[in-house]
């Protein structure tokens, strides 16, 4: 298990950027093919096949797709409800595609929110996610404890009038660490998660537990530590009366003393970031 970019050196990050772009390209390609009547399962399969055709053989987790009020995790009680269902897409419905492919040993984990047709509420949610991206980066650079940053994100969501929906994820995480994954010929999945990636996460959890940090960024006490160097897949997820939206991308945290270099988003050329830039230009 080679540890990823602690120094944030571009050469080390290239592979991760490449797979993240690939995943977002997949999300955009699949989103463009979504039509009324497509089920969540079909959308998830479309993502899997698209990436398989481009050489992805292993996953941190298999692709998810959520439609309609499932984008806000309405009524989710057990983790099994995350898995794609037979829910069909209808005009005006929001959707979220979420996938975490492993490619050439590098992991990506992305979330893509869209809507079939027009929905001013969904547009608003997407616009309001920008403040969260700024807040997360700013406070990580300030080296604030992860638990505190989590609470600040929570408070911002409350001010915006939204519900925190990443709270519904396992352990309520807003982010988790990702890393290099050894390429094996056979990499089975367990409950939708790749066993190789899970092993990495588990070993991080074990080491972290000894040293007082956790690879899971949660609202709980075990996240009461400053940001740890490495790659974090950050996924703030907001819900508002049956409509949900999120983004998920990799935040690079390094040991550098220069604040600019101590934390930065792996890539700024992503659909949601481009969208905000376009809106500002307009």
């Amino acid at each position: 298990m080679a540890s990823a970019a602690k120094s944030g050196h571009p050469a080390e990050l290239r592979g991760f950027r490449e797979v993240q772009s690939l995943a977002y390209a997949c999300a955009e390609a699949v989103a463009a093919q979504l039509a009324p009547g497509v089920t969540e399962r079909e959308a998830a399969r479309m993502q899997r096949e698209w990436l398989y055709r481009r050489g992805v053989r292993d996953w941190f987790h298999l692709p998810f797709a959520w439609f309609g009020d499932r984008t806000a995790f309405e009524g989710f009680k057990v983790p099994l409800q995350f898995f794609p269902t037979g829910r069909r897409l209808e005009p005006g419905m929001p959707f979220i595609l979420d996938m975490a492919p492993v490619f050439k040993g590098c992991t990506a984990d992305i979330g893509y929110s869209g809507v079939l047709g027009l929905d001013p509420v969904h547009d608003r949610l997407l616009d309001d996610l920008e403040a969260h991206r700024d807040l997360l980066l700013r406070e990580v650079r300030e080296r604030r404890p992860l638990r505190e940053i989590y609470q600040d994100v929570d408070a911002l969501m409350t001010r915006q009038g939204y519900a925190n929906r990443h709270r519904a994820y396992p352990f309520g995480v807003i982010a988790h660490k990702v890393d290099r994954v050894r390429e094996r010929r056979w990499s089975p999945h367990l409950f939708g998660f790749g066993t190789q990636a899970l092993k990495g996460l588990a070993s991080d959890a074990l080491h972290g537990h000894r040293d007082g940090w956790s690879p899971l960024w949660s609202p709980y006490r075990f996240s009461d530590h400053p940001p740890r160097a490495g790659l974090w897949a950050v996924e703030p997820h907001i819900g508002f009366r049956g409509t949900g939206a999120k983004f998920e991308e990799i935040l690079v945290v390094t040991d550098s003393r220069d604040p600019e270099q101590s934390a930065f988003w792996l890539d700024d050329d992503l659909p949601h970031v481009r969208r905000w830039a376009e809106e500002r230009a307009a």
Partner: protein
Amino acid sequence: MSTVIEGARERRVLTGGIELCVAELGDPGRPTVLLVHGYPDSKEVWADVATRLAARFHVVLYDVRGHGRSTAPAPLRGGFTLEKLTDDFLAVADAVSPGKPVHLVGHDWGSVQSWEFVTVPRTEGRIASFTSISGPSLDHFGHWIKKRMSRPTPRRAAQLLGQGAKSWYVYLLHTPVLPELAWRGPLGSRWPKILQRMEKVPAGDYPTSSLRSDAAHGAWLYRDNVRSRLRRPRADAYAHAPVQLITPTGDAFLSEHLYDDLEQWAPQLTRRTLPAKHWVPRTRPDQLASWIGEFVTAQEDPGPVPRTRATGKHAARFGGQLVLVTGAAGGIGRATAFAFAESGARIVAVDRDAEGAARTAEMARLIGSPDAWAEVVDVSDEQAMEKLAERVAADYGTVDVLVNNAGVGLSGSFFDTTVEDWKKVLDVNLWGVIHGCRLFGRQMADRGQGGHIVNIASAAAYQPSKALPAYSTSKAGVLMLSECLRAELAGQGIGVSAICPGFVNTNITSTARFAGVSADEEKRRQKKTARLYGLRNYPPEKVAEAILSAVVDNRAIAAVTPEARTALLLSRFAPKSLRAIARLEPPL
């Protein structure tokens, strides 16, 4: 015998040997709204609605044949068939709006006959929209009865018997001579009093002096049509125009279930419900004028972009109504504002926090509110509240639903609670509610067209606790105030509900004051309480749902969370157990 409609221009329209008295208001160049009255009424029943619509539309009213100052057919028998009434309508429509379809509005028998107009082929293209109030199509009614007779499930049988009982007067009107004698005799002279007492129709210049002959002639509306249509209802009675159905929920003569299957007859149906009795044109003119105006405008000018549609469960009840919520920048207040917005209500979001209130108003507009405004006011400030009430009345109108929600938390032993602490909590929690009820409640009462006041009390109002003496006292005050006010306003059609949420996950915990401890300790306890409430995690959205239901059902007290409901039950049957709980130390 003079008309009581101010500024109306009168004319006579001839049709099939009958002279109809037609009144017009407003600019004839604007869309024509044609108001048809019921039984035993004349066109003057619409006076208040007509004058409210006249500024925006060309409003036309006419006395149905045999009523008011229109002449009666001779002989009366066979002179009131729906076919002849349709001739009358077409004659009036051609006279007042040649070449342009009219927007039809009918109440009671006016609606019954308008259903005929809007479902027969010969009027196609002459009707742009139809608003039906308290009057079903006899054909639909016939099918409704047949369906329930042919397969009488318990529910259907109950519906049939229920409507059968409500239709008692229809049977009486079919007896020969007696109804005429009654109307020309004692019933005619007592009718205004009966209307006032039983139907809450305000006294004044209505009914007009033609009541006795209106009622006597109008009996033939029933005799000429009811039996024949109910026996052999038309199978093709489909509406060829968009229909808005306004159902008064307190109607003594018509069951709400009559309209259960209406979508099959009227494919473009908008439903509205109104908590009022049968004579809504007299008792709720503001609401009717607003819904009619909105519906007509929507048909005239559909607009290029589909507007955000109200999708809420109670959209029929709250669409277009004005709802004011205090403490609307977060928690229960914000969730309640959103729930009303989803039901199509116009929202006034009041809070001390300008940014939060503005945000609530902005999001409310996104999810279905036709219009929403933010107002920055501290509810404990008497003068500011008075100014707010004036501003709201002048700019937005009279509030239909008032939600007094703003409140602050205060915990600590009685002896640690300072006079300042007491003042603060009573000023916001109790005086804020008093000001709201006093100012906006008065506006509602003065308008005399109903409304609803919701006061957010708390389960602490009946669950004592050594940790919350001041807070519980303030909330018990709110609860009792609500009960007293409910009794006082019951006769005016204004409902009052007290809501007792219980432990709900909102920001009140983070802003609560803890008396008798240091600032650091207070912060620690706020955090701890917020965490505990977070673990309980009862969402404010559910309280908002309970609030809307409480308004719809006009409930006196609504305890929301299971613990609040349990405590309410214990307070009645086992108050000792609550006293035991009151002694417990809070886990902070």
